[in-house]
């Protein structure tokens, strides 16, 4: 028999119960809101006790959920949908916009106040986990605490009286009682051990004794694993923020990308990432294909049904060229970096010739989805190579719509596309010359100081022109427009598709995944396992033996009573058929 645990240990265990989901009476820490007399150390200790109390943790949980709300309602700068919405919001809310901006409402999840809440929550959590892990580690090495003195106060309690009559073998009644008591306790011990309880047996003196048993220690283990895993998730977020690489790149069919920081269209590197040391793998987009719902009766007509990007790629420093089809749920993984297909679009191939008939631009121009059925818009800035008739250089800008299936002009919406896949591709352009501003990109210019050219002189009030591939029924070229004043010509040569990829290298995935498993596993243990104590006490008294069986749930436990009853039935002698012999004990505990 092992020695009973010290009261000190029991206290430690009792005090550390604040993570549990068990109903529990809180008597000491946290419930008193009276301020103590303050020295610095006491003040700090008091603050710490408050922070690690369940009450404050609850308040922090509420604050966290409240603080998360504005981020889902207001546009966010870091959102993957559309960060330009923040600019739009600020433009349309001149008064409240700047105030919200100052209060970091457009970057809620990186804001000082949101961070403060979750950091406090995690400090509170750690302040709870450490002492509890320590206490539980101790508990795991000790037998259960001794049975309490008054079992009748336990939430589940049964008692009965057994009458002992001395027989020939044992002439002394007291001796017979003692033997019966010992046998009861042994039986209780055996029954509880068979049910895999941890058991401690002790003496009360005067022939009495008790058995104390406890089971369900894994509940607390699960509880701790769950909370530690939450800390693991937070650590994962920190790793992601520091070592993560995120970016976007747009690749047109027939073009490629090498993983060098300069080639990213948009990038967001963690502080621990050296932009010069990215693995220089390369990806080439061979072909992009999309399917759309073509059933005219379907309410989803024109909705996308599938996307595929066929790529050729090779790892950094490798000549081993591989092929893969990247789809929405199947990213490309190279050198620990993932490329996700996130969006796509059309890039009409445009050829611009100058006055001398020399092609000054000839290639795909990326257009962006700007209306129903993949109506797309885009522009091209030809900054050099064009000349007026007098030979002086002039800038040419082209703006336009690309319609995969041109269906005509709407008075309100302009050109209309009838289907997102190319059926009758058309390029509708208008052109500008003059000062097109000092833009960095080939694909944008400023029209505020430019002069619009009339590309459709036959039609007054219309300066644009629609270009189609090939020839019309009369055999006339309809893919080219001559620019006025002999500036040159613009030809719609065809179209390519492009795919936009998110590039992502995130070393936190493995630890976060492990933590996620810990969270679910820990939860299942901590909500599924019942921790409870069962006590059996025998005490000589009356004309025999008084036996008590009691149980104490240390968690929400609907089955405790049945379990205690079951143990009791096992220990109790079979009820005699003769009603006269059955005497119910008075057993003072009924309330």
């Amino acid at each position: 028999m092992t020695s009973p645990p010290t009261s000190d240990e029991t206290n430690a265990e009792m005090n550390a119960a604040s993570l549990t989901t068990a109903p529990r009476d809180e008597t000491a820490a946290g419930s008193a809101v009276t301020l103590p007399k303050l020295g610095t150390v006491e003040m700090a200790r008091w603050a710490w006790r408050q922070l690690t109390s369940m009450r404050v943790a609850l308040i922090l949980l509420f604050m966290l959920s409240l603080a998360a709300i504005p981020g889902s309602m207001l546009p966010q700068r870091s959102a993957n949908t559309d960060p330009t919405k923040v600019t739009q919001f600020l433009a349309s809310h001149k008064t409240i916009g700047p105030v919200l901006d100052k209060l970091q409402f457009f970057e809620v999840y990186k804001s000082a106040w949101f961070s403060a809440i979750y950091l406090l929550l995690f400090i509170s959590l750690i302040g709870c986990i450490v002492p509890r892990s320590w206490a539980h580690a101790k508990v795991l090495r000790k037998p259960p605490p001794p049975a309490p003195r008054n079992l009748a106060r336990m939430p589940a309690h049964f008692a009965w009286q057994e009458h002992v009559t001395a027989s020939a073998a044992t002439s002394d009644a007291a001796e017979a009682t003692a033997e019966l008591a010992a046998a009861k306790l042994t039986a209780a011990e055996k029954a509880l051990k068979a049910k895999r309880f941890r058991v401690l047996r002790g003496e009360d003196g005067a022939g009495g004794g008790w058995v104390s048993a406890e089971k369900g220690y894994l509940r607390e283990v699960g509880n701790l694993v769950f909370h530690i895993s939450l800390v693991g998730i937070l650590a994962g977020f920190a790793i992601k923020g520091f070592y993560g690489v995120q970016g976007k790149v747009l690749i047109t069919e027939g073009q490629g990308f090498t993983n060098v920081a300069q080639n990213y269209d948009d990038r967001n590197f963690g502080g621990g990432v050296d932009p010069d040391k990215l693995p220089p793998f390369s990806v080439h987009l061979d072909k992009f294909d999309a399917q759309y719902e073509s059933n005219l009766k379907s309410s989803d007509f024109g909705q996308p049904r599938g996307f595929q990007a066929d790529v050729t790629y090779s790892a950094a420093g490798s000549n081993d060229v591989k092929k893969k089809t990247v789809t929405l749920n199947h990213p490309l993984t190279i050198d620990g970096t993932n490329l996700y297909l996130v969006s796509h679009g059309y890039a009409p191939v445009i050829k611009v010739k100058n006055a001398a008939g020399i092609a000054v631009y000839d290639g795909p121009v990326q257009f962006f989805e700007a209306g129903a059925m993949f109506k797309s818009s885009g522009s091209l800035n030809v900054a050099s190579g064009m000349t007026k008739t007098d030979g002086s250089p002039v800038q040419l800008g082209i703006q336009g719509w690309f319609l995969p299936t041109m269906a005509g002009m709407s008075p309100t919406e302009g050109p209309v596309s009838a289907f997102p896949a190319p059926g009758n591709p058309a390029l509708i352009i208008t052109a500008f010359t003059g000062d097109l501003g000092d833009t960095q990109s080939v694909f944008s210019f400023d029209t505020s100081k430019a002069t619009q050219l009339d590309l459709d002189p036959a039609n007054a009030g219309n300066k644009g022109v629609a270009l189609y591939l090939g020839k019309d029924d009369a055999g006339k070229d309809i893919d080219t427009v001559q620019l006025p004043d002999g500036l040159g010509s613009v030809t719609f040569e065809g179209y390519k598709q492009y795919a936009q990829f998110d590039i992502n290298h995130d070393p936190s995935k493995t630890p976060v995944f492990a933590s996620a498993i810990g969270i679910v596993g820990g939860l299942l243990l901590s909500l599924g396992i019942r921790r409870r104590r069962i006590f059996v006490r025998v005490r000589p008294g009356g004309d025999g033996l008084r036996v008590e069986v009691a149980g104490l749930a240390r968690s929400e436990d609907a089955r405790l009573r049945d379990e205690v009853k079951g143990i009791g039935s096992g220990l109790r002698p079979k009820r005699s058929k003769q009603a006269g012999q059955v005497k119910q004990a008075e057993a003072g505990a009924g309330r």
Partner: protein
Amino acid sequence: MINESLARYSNYALYGAMIVYAFAFFGYAAEWVFGRNSKFVVPAAADAVAETSAEAPAEAALVGAGVGGASASGGFSGLDDLDVPGLDAPDPAIHNGNLRAATWGGVAVSLTGLAFLLHVASVALRGFAAHRVPWGNLFEFSVAGSCVAMAIYLALLWKKDARWLGVFVTGTVLLVLGLALVVLYHDADQLVPALHSYWLVVHVMAAVICSGAFTVATLATVLYLFKSRHETKARLGTAKPDSMWRRVPAAAKLDQTAYRILAFSFPIWTFTVIAGSIWAERAWGRYWGWDPTETWAFITWVVYAAYLHARATMGWKGRNAAIIAIIGYGAFIFNYFFVSIFVNGLHSYAGVK
């Protein structure tokens, strides 16, 4: 690709289910109404526990073997004393001993079972019609989720008498199905490409299960709030003698029912969020991005976590914890209807136009 006739049968089954649920609803309501007309009878609690435990097999040999000549006899003193009063008391009945009411209730239960079969058939036929899991848009999600709610109610009914929930569950399910048909309806159709993943099976199925479980738990929680108020009044002697709440099980029992459903669904909800983030990692390149739907799933999770903690905190257990659970359901519903339909995020698969 879409089997139009199966899709039509699925809709017919759904209409049928709604009609039968409506009859069941009235049956349950009739039980409440007719039950009012009989005098309230306090069910006999006498000695039930002691009797059943006496039937349990006892190891009589122990005594005889252990102590040679000692003869022993005894019985439980029946100290049925729990710290939560009312948990062990036999439930009062909605029909209150009124035979007519009891008959109505019994008929309602049978009708619920029939309607449930039709409901299941509707969900299954949708899946067969579209050759995919039947939860690809908000309409299908609502139909499948209410089916789970009903399954949980029937499971409760099977394990113990949960007829007190009947009128509320059938009413809620009817409401959800009606809303689904009128506001959210979407023809059986192929999925948008983003949903072409087996994570649709795992992640959304878990969410569907939670939607049903949260709904039933919330109904039990609301009933708990009413019943606990009634119990307070009864203690003060101000409760109406024919109050309908007398016929509902003890508040502690309602609370425990709600808790057990939530303790069962909270890990599933956790799993839903985790499976969703694994899918997000596959599809969008990050496991967490504060997309509006993700944010509200997180809020729901945090509020339900607060509920579980509140139950263990002095001053928060009982009614306060119950209110937190209702707030958690509010966050879930907000996410489910408002965010998926009106907030433009990556989870915009509602299919509502």
